[in-house]
């Protein structure tokens, strides 16, 4: 895995030598040039796909020399990729756990980690369904199946379990649960009415026209839902990564994030 990182620096050295050679021969006055093209790889949680693509387009307008490649997947998979040395300059995780793991192994560039975003957990039901108006009503007989992410592996499912436990509903509702492999599957089941209700992030609920948000999880009923971001230590373009992260943390990006339903933590 180290070899992967050695090659770019080797090529950089070659480039430098070549550039020096040219400069020596021509001795032309250095014309005011556009900054050298930079290629940035962002590994981000799949739930950020739409909003991040929009933000990258905005950023690229101002910084045309920066080419940004994205790698969207589950945070756990991205964490494992980075641990195995996959090239990534910036990592945005959907849960602190995966970032913590990388931090513990010293794979993050120091002092670059920020809690970029927050999200909220909501109860959803199929558009136009009757009889589900609150978390408490999930116990009613009319609600037969409740879809949620599998709590051990899906972060949204873990938050859902925390909230339902906090509300004293977990044990009572247990026979009604169907555990999904991700939030998207929860939405599929709820959209079709195969599950009567489901627990998902607000941002995901907003992407699905077939479901309506019934209630938000009471504040304090689950651990805060945070999306940490950090620059990866092995990044060859750490400065560019820092600059893009600063853009994502700024007010302009904050407004876009808010439009998608994310919250921007006070910094």
């Amino acid at each position, binding site marked *: 895995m180290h070899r992967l990182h050695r090659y770019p620096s080797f090529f950089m050295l070659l480039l430098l030598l070549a550039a020096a050679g040219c400069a020596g021969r021509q001795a032309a006055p250095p014309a005011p040039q556009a900054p050298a093209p930079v290629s940035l790889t962002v590994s981000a949680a799949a739930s950020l796909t739409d909003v991040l693509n929009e933000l990258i387009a905005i950023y690229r307008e101002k910084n045309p020399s920066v080419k940004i490649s994205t790698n969207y997947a*589950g945070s*756990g998979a991205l964490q494992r990729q980075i641990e195995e040395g996959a090239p990534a300059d910036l990592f945005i995780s959907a849960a602190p756990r995966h970032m913590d793991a990388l931090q513990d192994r010293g794979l993050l560039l120091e002092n670059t980690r920020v809690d970029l975003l927050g999200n909220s957990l909501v109860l959803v039901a199929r558009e136009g369904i009757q009889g589900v108006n609150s978390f408490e009503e999930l116990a009613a007989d009319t609600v037969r*199946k409740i*879809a949620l992410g*599998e709590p*051990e*592996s*899906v972060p949204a499912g873990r938050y859902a379990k925390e909230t339902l436990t906090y509300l004293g509903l977990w044990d009572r509702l247990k026979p009604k*649960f*169907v*555990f*999904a*492999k991700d939030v998207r*599957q929860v939405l*599929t*089941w709820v959209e*079709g*009415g*195969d*599950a009567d209700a489901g627990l998902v992030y607000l941002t995901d609920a907003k992407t699905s026209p077939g479901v309506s948000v019934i209630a938000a999880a009471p504040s304090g009923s689950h651990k805060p839902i945070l999306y940490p971001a950090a620059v990866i230590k092995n990044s060859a373009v750490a400065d560019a990564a820092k600059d893009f992260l600063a853009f994502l943390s700024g007010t302009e990006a904050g407004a876009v994030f808010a439009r998608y339903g994310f919250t921007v933590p006070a910094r």
Partner: protein
Amino acid sequence: MLELSPLLISLKTATAATAVAFFPGILAARWLAHTPGGRNRALADGLLIMPLLLPPTVIGFLLLLVFGNRGLLGRVLTEWGMPVVFTWPGAVIAAAVVTFPLMYRTARGAFEQVDPDLLDAARTMGATEWLVFRRVMLPLSWPGITAGIILSFARALGEFGATLMLAGNIPGKTQTMPIAIYFAVEGGKREVALFWTLLMIAVATFIVLALNYWSYRRHNNVTHGRVG
């Protein structure tokens, strides 16, 4: 103590799914094996092996459309008190659909290997088509049919995507071994995942060996019976 229900559910589901896929598989194979060729036959073949071509998640989604709350069939079945989504029969249906092409295609291959002269010989002796099928075609293609059963069972045992989509992941009810393994890996429970994986390898190996042994015995009996 580890909950052992995924093992039982997997065995039950794979057995039932193989049985469910067996008869339509054999019938479809018989229907298409010796009928004159043409575009319709190719089209029917394409449709029948479609579940093998599509990713299991897609099949699961299509099954959800048919058997779910949105589908007519799903609503009728629920009305009759036989809901499919998030139930064990749902797991059987998902596995059977995914498994069907293997049963059908293997059986068809076996049927086509049978010398048509032998079938005609039986016919000239006055045997009905059903008798020809049962007493000549089926025994002669038995090794191929057992291969189909073994493949179907193996595929049903490993089914994950369509099953999860249609039957969900309900511990003690629809949570099969592959589903238990997937969620253990994703949840970072390596030991649990490893336990299920080893158990699954052991079970699969045992069953395939047993089926092969049974098929071998059966085949020998058939051929000896015929010759002797």
